[in-house]
């Protein structure tokens, strides 16, 4: 018995993963059910008897969770492995497949979270927000089109690469060349995020000092800041938040609560004043 998975079945498996990787998510099993459903058409095609199918699908009941978009490569790899197992290749058994899955889901989650979710999406959103300045829907539409084309064809590409190349597909991602690409994209991300911060974050102080009897204040703190470095206060608060999050390991929620306290004290002493009126 030496079956190959047909193109049609591979595509079907990919679509099931593309859509269903997180539909039935729970804290206990996370993406396990999405994985089972994606492997189902492959297993059904490769094995004729019900018993064999059940035995094969049982491999994939092991816990699975990763960044699902980049994780398509893992599904692709296991499709290839399953084909090898059905053909009777030695060494490809339950343990080998699950060892590979468990070994890959950590690194792929790390790269996927920082590269796809933490860099590519914010860059696209940054550009989209720029295009939507003033309330134009153009930026939102730009994001919908560009991101979805990128996500769909990108995932499809790495899924197929995973199937074709097996374990070698991951070397491309984690190897030296992959690292050079990732580092460069991160660099691009850092610059764009800086521009996003400067364009959209606006922390301003209302603090002024007026000499007794004078009409004009002799110190307008905001102007002083701006003459030193435009956006000084915004950048300062961002670095402060980064320090708390990254160096002090404080959770985002607690940082937000701390900002509420700072805002309250700031308003009390007149450092912040949004100048509200009806």
């Amino acid at each position, binding site marked *: 018995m030496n079956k190959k998975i047909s193109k049609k079945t591979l595509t079907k498996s990919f679509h099931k993963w593309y*859509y269903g*990787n*997180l539909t*039935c*998510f*729970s*804290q206990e099993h*996370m993406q*396990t*059910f999405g994985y*089972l*459903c994606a492997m*189902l058409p492959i297993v*059904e095609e490769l094995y004729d008897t019900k018993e064999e199918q*059940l035995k094969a*699908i*049982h491999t994939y009941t092991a816990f699975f*969770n990763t960044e699902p978009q980049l994780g398509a490569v893992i599904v692709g790899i296991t499709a290839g492995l399953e084909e090898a197992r059905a053909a009777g290749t030695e060494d490809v058994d339950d343990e080998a497949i699950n060892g590979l899955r468990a070994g890959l889901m950590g690194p792929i989650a790390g790269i996927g*979270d920082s590269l796809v979710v*933490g860099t590519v999406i914010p860059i696209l*959103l940054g*550009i989209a*927000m720029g295009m*939507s300045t003033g*309330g134009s*829907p153009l930026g*939102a539409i730009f994001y*919908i089109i560009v991101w979805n084309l990128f996500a*769909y064809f990108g995932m499809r590409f790495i899924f197929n690469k995973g199937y074709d190349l097996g374990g070698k597909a991951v070397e491309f991602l984690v190897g030296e060349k992959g690292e050079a690409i990732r580092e*460069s994209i991160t*660099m*691009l991300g*850092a*610059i*764009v995020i*800086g*521009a996003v*911060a*400067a*364009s*959209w974050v606006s*922390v301003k102080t209302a603090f002024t000092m007026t000499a007794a009897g004078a009409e004009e204040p002799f110190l307008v703190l905001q102007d002083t800041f701006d003459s030193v*470095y*435009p956006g000084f206060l*915004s*950048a300062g*608060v961002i670095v402060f938040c*980064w320090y*708390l999050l*990254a160096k002090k390991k404080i959770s985002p*929620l607690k*940082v937000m609560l701390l*900002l509420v306290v700072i*805002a309250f004290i700031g*308003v009390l002493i007149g450092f*912040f004043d*949004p100048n*509200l*009126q*009806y």
Partner: protein
Amino acid sequence: MEISWLQAAILGLFACLSSMPGLGGTSFGNYTLGRPLIGGLVCGVVLGDIQSGILVGIAMQLVYIALVTPGGTVSADVRAVSYIGIPLAMIALKSYGLDAASLDGQSLAASFGTMVGTLGTVLFYGTATINLVWQHIGWKSVEDGDLSKLNIVNYVLPWISHIICSFIPVLIMCKMGAPMVDLIKEYLPMDGLAMKTLFTVGSLLPCVGIAILLKQIVVKASDFVMFFLGFTLAASLGINLVSATVIAGTFAIINYRIKMVMITKKASGSIDVDDEEDI
């Protein structure tokens, strides 16, 4: 501004599609419809004010620009931010008579959205917990040797979780929104301390969003230089985001070429190692 039952129901449907674990799929649901900028467009279209929708969406998008959910733990729920927070913020802006494009309007929207988004994590854990029931059915059928139920478990039954945890909460919150905002308005005057604090918090919150991103990007001190390069381009030179991306891309390509040269050099033999020792 009133939200009709029909409008609230449409927003509820989008909430089902857009959450993490959502029924629109990860890429199109969570990472497209769930992003506040896109949520702003959807809410704007449904509620008949695209411009305000987009502007409120931008204000909230900044706070949640780095919404990464490592290992399935969330600090805010996108369905709540985008489909409860945005409609309520739009109502509040109308009610207070604020312009969504103004700094005050953006601050109010950000505060509002963050509050709702944080409370919304309840919905995330609710959905994930109800899904356990469907997964239990799935396990049982695999053990019994019946694989046909797997698809129903993964694609159909979660709709029930979402009707309970996405559709109904959005429906209720959107309908109750207008009276609630009126109530807040009555008790908290605009020039009072509470409102001033709320607006100030709104202007500070996006800093957290950017800082979460930086936490991922900044590994060494020199990475901060790149961030400030971008900051300077926009703040001091007034360069817009698309142009800044082009400049950023140039730097990225140069960096990639340098790295590749280093890799091929390393691979081409020991001569270079000697060079390094001389230094």
